[in-house]
Structures are given as structure tokens and as C-alpha cells.
């Protein structure tokens, strides 16, 4: 398998705070990788650095061999890296269809073609019944679905999902897990930031653990939950139990 995303020595400082320190990891094509860690570990900042919303102080991000550090977010998206946001950012005044069409215009400027592509993506995430609903009237999970559809409509090769399952109930998490699985079957490479351990175990083949901006571990899910350093990083924030649970 070829490497889809190669992150090497990524650094970002905000004033005195070293948000991301020398982080490196590799994502193989069609692999699903989870980025985990306690709050403030630098997961979302890493996403911002990879997708051009922040500029890295140093380091490199290669997407299918192309350097993306220094590119603007729209250029990164054009290269085939699409992302969602931790707090969904729908275009509230637009309908679901119009939201997703806006994504589809990246590859095809014709309205009719874009509408077709958009409907496909909306169907895929299961929002077809809501096509004409203004995005601001959607429920939280539907807004997340919309973000995914909008990202998919840009026809990405790598999809970065930032906590798409936060705040969902167990049944909704199952649906979301199934959706991520379906995306992976379609051949997409997925990087996912997530807190819900159950979901991570279900979707990720490889896990990268960040703490205080540094990578403290990486490996298969089974190794990660047994890693003493990971358990120490999570201790006290309530996730040690999650690790222990999987252990048992």
C-alpha cells in the first residue's frame, strides 16, 4: 500500500504554548487512523495544520507526495483533503442540497452536474429526506451528516473527521460508526479525531496518541489500550476505565 498522508516533525507554537511538538505519523492509503488524546493534546491543532487553517512553524505534511504546508485551506481541499469541524459549521441559510452543491462545485461548476453529485453524497449519509430543509433547522447529528456530505461532495481522497461523534447517543454512534465503515469501503483514507473509545475501537486500524502536543504512542488498537504511558496520560480524566474495560 502507498502512503496517503505523511506527517513529519510538525511543530506549532501559540505564544508560550507549544501546541504541537515534533509530531510525525503516516497514514497508508485506504487506512483509517484515529488521533486520540486528552483535551488540549493538540489533535484539533494538528488538523488545522494539515488542512492549512494554521501554518506550521516547521515540519512537513505530504499528501500523496505533495507538500501541503504553506497552502491555503481551499488549495489543500483541491488536492483531495477534506475535513469536518469539531463544531459543525453548516451554511445555515442554505438548504441541505445547496450546502452540499457548494462542495460539489469544486470539481464541476455546472449546476445540474453539481446537483447530481450532491444528491449522491446526501443519499450516502442518509439525509435524502431532509434535502430541502434549511441547514440551521437540522438536529446535531444531521448537521454532522451534512458536514460529511459536503466534504464528500468535494470528492476527497483523504477525509479528516474532527469529533463527529461527540454528543451523540449510543444508537447514533452506531450509525456514525457504520457510516465511517462505509466510507472506508469506498476506498477513502480516513483520519479521525475522536473521544468515544468504543467508536475508535470499531473503526480504526491504527491509533496515534497525543499528549501535551507530543506523540506518546502509536500502534494497533489492542497495543494502545495496554500501553502504560497512554493509560497514565488518560488517568484522572476518566478514560483509564475505558482502556481497562477493553483490556478485560
Amino acid at each position, binding site marked *: 500500500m502507498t502512503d496517503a498522508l505523511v506527517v513529519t516533525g510538525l511543530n506549532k507554537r501559540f505564544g508560550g504554548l507549544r501546541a504541537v511538538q515534533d509530531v510525525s505519523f503516516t497514514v497508508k492509503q485506504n487506512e483509517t487512523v484515529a488521533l486520540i488524546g486528552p483535551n488540549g493534546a493538540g489533535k484539533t491543532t494538528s488538523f488545522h495544520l494539515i*488542512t492549512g*487553517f494554521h501554518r506550521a512553524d516547521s515540519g512537513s505534511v505530504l499528501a500523496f507526495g505533495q507538500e501541503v504546508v504553506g497552502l*491555503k*485551506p*481551499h*488549495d489543500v*481541499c*483541491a488536492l483531495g483533503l*477534506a*475535513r469536518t*469541524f469539531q463544531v459543525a*459549521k*453548516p*451554511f*445555515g*441559510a*442554505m438548504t441541505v442540497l*445547496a450546502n452540499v*452543491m*457548494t*462542495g460539489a*462545485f*469544486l470539481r464541476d*461548476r*455546472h*449546476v445540474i452536474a*453539481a446537483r447530481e453529485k450532491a444528491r449522491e453524497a446526501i443519499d450516502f449519509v442518509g439525509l435524502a429526506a431532509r434535502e430541502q430543509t434549511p441547514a440551521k433547522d437540522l438536529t446535531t447529528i444531521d448537521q454532522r451528516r451534512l458536514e460529511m456530505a*459536503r*466534504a464528500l*461532495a*468535494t470528492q476527497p481522497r483523504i477525509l479528516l473527521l474532527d469529533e463527529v461523534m461527540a454528543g451523540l447517543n449510543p444508537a447514533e454512534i452506531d450509525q456514525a460508526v457504520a457510516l465511517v465503515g462505509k466510507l472506508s469501503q469506498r476506498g477513502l483514507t480516513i483520519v479521525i479525531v475522536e473521544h468515544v473509545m468504543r467508536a475508535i475501537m470499531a473503526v480504526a486500524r491504527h491509533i496515534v496518541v497525543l499528549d501535551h502536543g507530543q506523540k506518546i504512542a502509536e500502534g494497533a488498537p489492542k497495543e494502545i489500550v495496554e500501553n502504560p504511558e497512554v493509560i497514565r496520560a488518560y488517568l484522572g480524566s476518566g478514560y483509564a476505565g475505558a482502556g481497562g474495560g477493553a483490556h478485560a
Partner: protein
Amino acid sequence: MGKDADNTSKWQVAALATLGMILLLLPQLVSNGFALDIFIRILLFSFIGVAWNLMGGYAKQLSLGHVAYFGLGAYTSTIMQIDFNISPWIGMIAGGFVAMLASLPVGWLCFRLRGPYFTIATIATAQALMLIFLKFRDFAWGAEGTTIPNLGSSPLMMQFETKASYYYVVLGLLVLGLVITWRIERSWMGYYLVAIGEDEDAAEAIGVNAPRIKRHIYMISAFLTALAGTFYVQYIYFIDPATAFSFNISIEAALVSIVGGIGTLWGPVVGTVLLETTSALLQSWLGSSTGGIQLTVYSLILMAIILWRPTGLMGLFNDLWQRHLDRRPARMRTLP
């Protein structure tokens, strides 16, 4: 969608055709100079509002400095006419291009800011431009301004004997503005503009080159605004910095769009009809001597719209229409 949608669009075409006929015939039916003057003002400010709305309404880049381009258009064509005897028809287009070019550095500075500080920056750049025209006397007649020589009937120099002719010119401008808006609204560009207005980060994330789109729409908006500037000074035969760069024009451009319905095709037109009619009525009741009354009333209308109907009159019409549809017998409605 079926039958309802068909009926709606048939109604729309019929309404549009009727409106077009009325507008074309209006100067033949009304010969009262005062009334024609008001119609011309309504068409002119509708057009300025339409130009503003492209950037301010769809992309929510809330400029209060659009008079900069109005003034540049007015001065470009007047300087060309008086100093070089070039027809204002050519000067109008030239003014549009001057405004387009000027929008590049202004945009470069102002688009670094978001929200209210963008608005302040646009005010400041327009005021700075007015100061330049005030300061440099040899360049453009300084603060006194100049009258534009009256050549009698000279259509090639954009001078006409009857107000009706001016009416048709500005009606043409408004139609141009509406057609451009209609085309943009329905294309990928319209979607991109609204997306930028809703959430610029989210737009960038799905590949929208927000700075470039904003730059382009600002150029189009500036170009159209400049055409209005040329028309206006040709209509009143006079130019000075206080007229050509009047802050009130920036205000009215934004106001008519917000009151009528921000980011809608017809919003600026509807808003202008309401505001200008109100203003004309006030003037005929109170006489024109009472300074401040027009803007006092405008600001009250603006506050009322913002507090109770942020979608403007178009939003109100849509709600009423929707309610009307809901009240119709169930069999006439289509199922979702």
C-alpha cells in the same frame, strides 16, 4: 414539485411581464416632472442597491463605503468630458473600469478585517478618497466642483431634453444590474458568495477560494456602482466632492438592500420603493426645509426591520405567501 411549482413560475413570468410593461409605459402616462424625478430616483437607488447587494447582501461583506466607486465613476466621466470632450457614454464605461481597479487595493486592505471592522475600514477609505478630491484643486476643481456644460439635446453626450429619456437610461441600468444578479445567483458563484457570507472558514474547507471570490464580486459591484455615479452627475449637471462622495449614498445603498431583503434579487428594489416613497411623501407634507427628517425616518425603519424582520420585506412577503398557500385546500397542495 409538480403543479404548484409550475403555477408559481407562470405567475412569476406574468407578473414580471406586467411590471415591465408598466415601467416602460410609465413616462408616457406621467408627465409631471416631480413624479418622474421620484421615479428616476427610485430606479437609480434600486440600481445602486442591487450593485451593493451583490457583495454586501450575498457575501455579507457589509460595506459602508460604496460611494467611493460612485464618486470615481462620476469624476472619471466628468473629467473625460470636460477636459477631453469624450462622451460620458464612454466615460461611464471608463469610470467603471477605474472603480474596478480601485477596488483591488481597497479590498486588499479592507478584506483583512472581518465583521464591523471591515465596515469601518470601508467608511474610512471612502472618506479618504473624498479628502483627496477636496484637496487637489488643479486635479478636479477642489471643493467648489463644477457644472457640466448643458449642450441641450445631445443623446450622444448623455444629455436629453426630457426627463423621460433619463428615466429610460436608468431603467436600462437597473435591468442590467438585475440580470447580472440573476445570472450570478443561479450559478456556482452565487452559492460560493452565500457560503462565504455564512461561514468563511467552512467555505474555505470545501475548496472555496474566499479571497479571490470576494475580490471578484467587489470588482463587479464597484463597476456597477460607478455607472450610477456617471448617470447621476449627468442628470444633475453638477459635480463636487460633497455630492459625488456623499456618505448618504453609501448608507442608502446598504439600507435599501437590508430593508427590502438582504441577499435577494428584488430586495433592493422593494426597499428603495418603500424608502423613497416615504421620503417623497414626507417632503411633500413637511417641505424640503426640514433637514434630518428623511434620515430620522430611514433609521427608524431600519431599526424596526432589524429588530422584527431581519430578512426584510422580501422575507415578510415570503412568509405571507407561504401562509396563503397553507390555507388553501389540502387537495391543491402537493405532498412533500
